[in-house]
């Protein structure tokens, strides 16, 4: 019996336009479509596969505003057993380490052998929480893994490196963050969705976790102070050369005269 915890985050769908507020204090949230973070789908999938193979339970834990229950329900609809949401206005402005503190506090009270998370969340792309969580729980970690196999109390994982990969043996319990190539996430089934709707999601606040003041804007050591649209790239010259020879000459001329690389 394996106890698996998956950390999930709700993020705006990357397909839509994202605009900064005019005062630069954040992004314009009205009208946005919110989804379960792409990499977290892979983390949930990996948890379900471990459960199918070894038996056990999958508990998903999210930190975020009330709307983040939807991300938890998506994970439940995929097949996770239990959902937990920590929501508290005071968490606004917390940095990645702060979120990891919250997760560590929740997870410390759960049974677990394997903790999974996505390699990063596609909103802020920070890739901080997984490794910070491992540190705060004093657990070994392997980040951005592309393969995971368990044998008793030991995991064997692959992770990508610059121009290669490495294979690691990791003692359980441990924290793993997953790369997208680790699996192909399943779609929630209709019965799964129905079941997820009825499921009670346990909620916590900073107070119920005895984390008042330890997490939030005041405790954060990293703060996004301004959000803006990136400078627009100037579209350059677009041409439709009549022959491939002329296309090639135009590109060579550009490489020589503009980019100056040949």
């Amino acid at each position, binding site marked *: 019996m394996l106890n698996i915890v998956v950390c999930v985050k709700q993020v705006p769908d*990357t397909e839509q336009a*994202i605009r900064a507020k005019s005062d630069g204090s954040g*992004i314009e949230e009205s009208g946005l479509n919110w989804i379960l973070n792409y990499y977290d789908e892979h983390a949930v999938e990996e948890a379900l596969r471990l459960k199918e193979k070894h038996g056990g339970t999958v508990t998903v834990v999210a930190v975020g505003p009330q709307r983040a229950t939807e991300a938890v329900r998506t994970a439940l609809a995929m097949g996770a057993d239990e959902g937990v949401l920590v929501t508290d206005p005071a968490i606004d402005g917390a*940095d*990645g*380490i702060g979120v990891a503190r919250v997760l560590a506090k929740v997870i410390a009270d759960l049974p677990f052998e394997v903790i999974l998370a996505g390699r990063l969340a*596609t*909103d*802020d*792309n*920070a*890739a901080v929480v997984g*490794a910070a*969580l491992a*540190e705060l729980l004093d657990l*070994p970690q*392997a*980040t*951005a893994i592309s393969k995971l196999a368990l044998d008793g109390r030991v995991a*064997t994982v692959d992770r990508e*490196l*610059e*121009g*290669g*990969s*490495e*294979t*690691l043996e*990791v003692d359980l319990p441990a924290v793993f963050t997953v*790369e*997208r*190539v680790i699996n192909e996430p399943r779609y929630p089934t209709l019965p799964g969705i129905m079941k997820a709707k009825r499921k009670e999601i346990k909620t916590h606040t900073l107070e119920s976790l005895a984390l008042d003041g330890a997490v939030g804007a005041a405790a*954060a*050591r*990293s703060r*996004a102070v*301004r959000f*803006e*649209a*990136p*400078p627009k*790239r100037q*579209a*350059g*010259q*677009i*041409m*439709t*050369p009549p022959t*491939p020879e002329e*296309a*090639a000459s135009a*590109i060579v001329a*550009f*490489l*020589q005269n*503009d*980019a100056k*690389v*040949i």
Partner: protein
Amino acid sequence: MGKDVWVLVDHEAGAVRRITLELLGKAREIATALGGRAGAVLIGPSRDDTNTKLAAHGADVVLRAEGDGLGAYTTEAWTAVVSDAFRAHAPAALLVPSTAWGRDCAPRIAARLGAGIVTDVEDLAWETDHLVARRPMYTRKILATVALSGDGPQIAVVLPKVFPLPDAASDRVAEQVALPGRTSDREPRVRVLGRHEIKRERASLSEADIVISGGRGLRAPENFALLDGLAATLNGAVGSSRPPVDSGWVPHEYEIGQTGKTVSPTVYVAVGISGAPQHLAGMSGSKFIIAINKDQNAPIFQVASLGVVGDLFAIVPKLTDEIGKAKAAT
């Protein structure tokens, strides 16, 4: 608070990755302004030229840890060495290369020290008593300014090729400081079973000055040979959009974009790539973008410095020939 700025050296048995040297240039700039020194934290076995290379590119001090348990990168060992060194020497900041190892240990070091951390950094400055960084967010639809704070250390994980390689001054010498090696007597909980290389003939994707990237328009895995040929004449590296990875034509290591790598080469050539936002997120920091696409309405043309409408299968072989000729002539 300290005045020194450190760089965590990313290296493979002493062969220093280029990004480390790029960060040394920036570290030296900030340290000089603070009246401090640039330090290079070198963990594990090194080569004869490792020290001279770090010194030549800006390190005033090389802080070295070697010995038992430090032969191969592990999160726990590197986290312990860097955190202990931080406590002992209290530098102002640590710059970490955004590589697999750097991204793995930096957040853990930050959590251990209660430090501020910012990742995916594309620009960095010191203001009064803290680092201010710029980083893309939300599929690069937003550029965020992030301020670190606190009197503890501040950590920035920086993307490759956003800072220039500093000029090497081969006569510079760095002071050597020995850091304690592995001090924990706990059995390592993570063991490296093996490392496997993906053979690349030339520069690695994130270090290359020229990147040639192929998309779904390539149609079949064997057609990536066209891009290999082009990359060879330009001494560039080959990358891809996501569909070629999902179809198994190239390994995930090739992927550029939100769910792949972020690259900022001098020239990025997008071949048969439409220019979806998730792809642009990984390459629109490139200095020049050349696009070859048969659809004149492809969004990639909106960001291309030079857009060529046409059939890639006709153009790319001709282009490889022409570049060969142009190079022979110079």
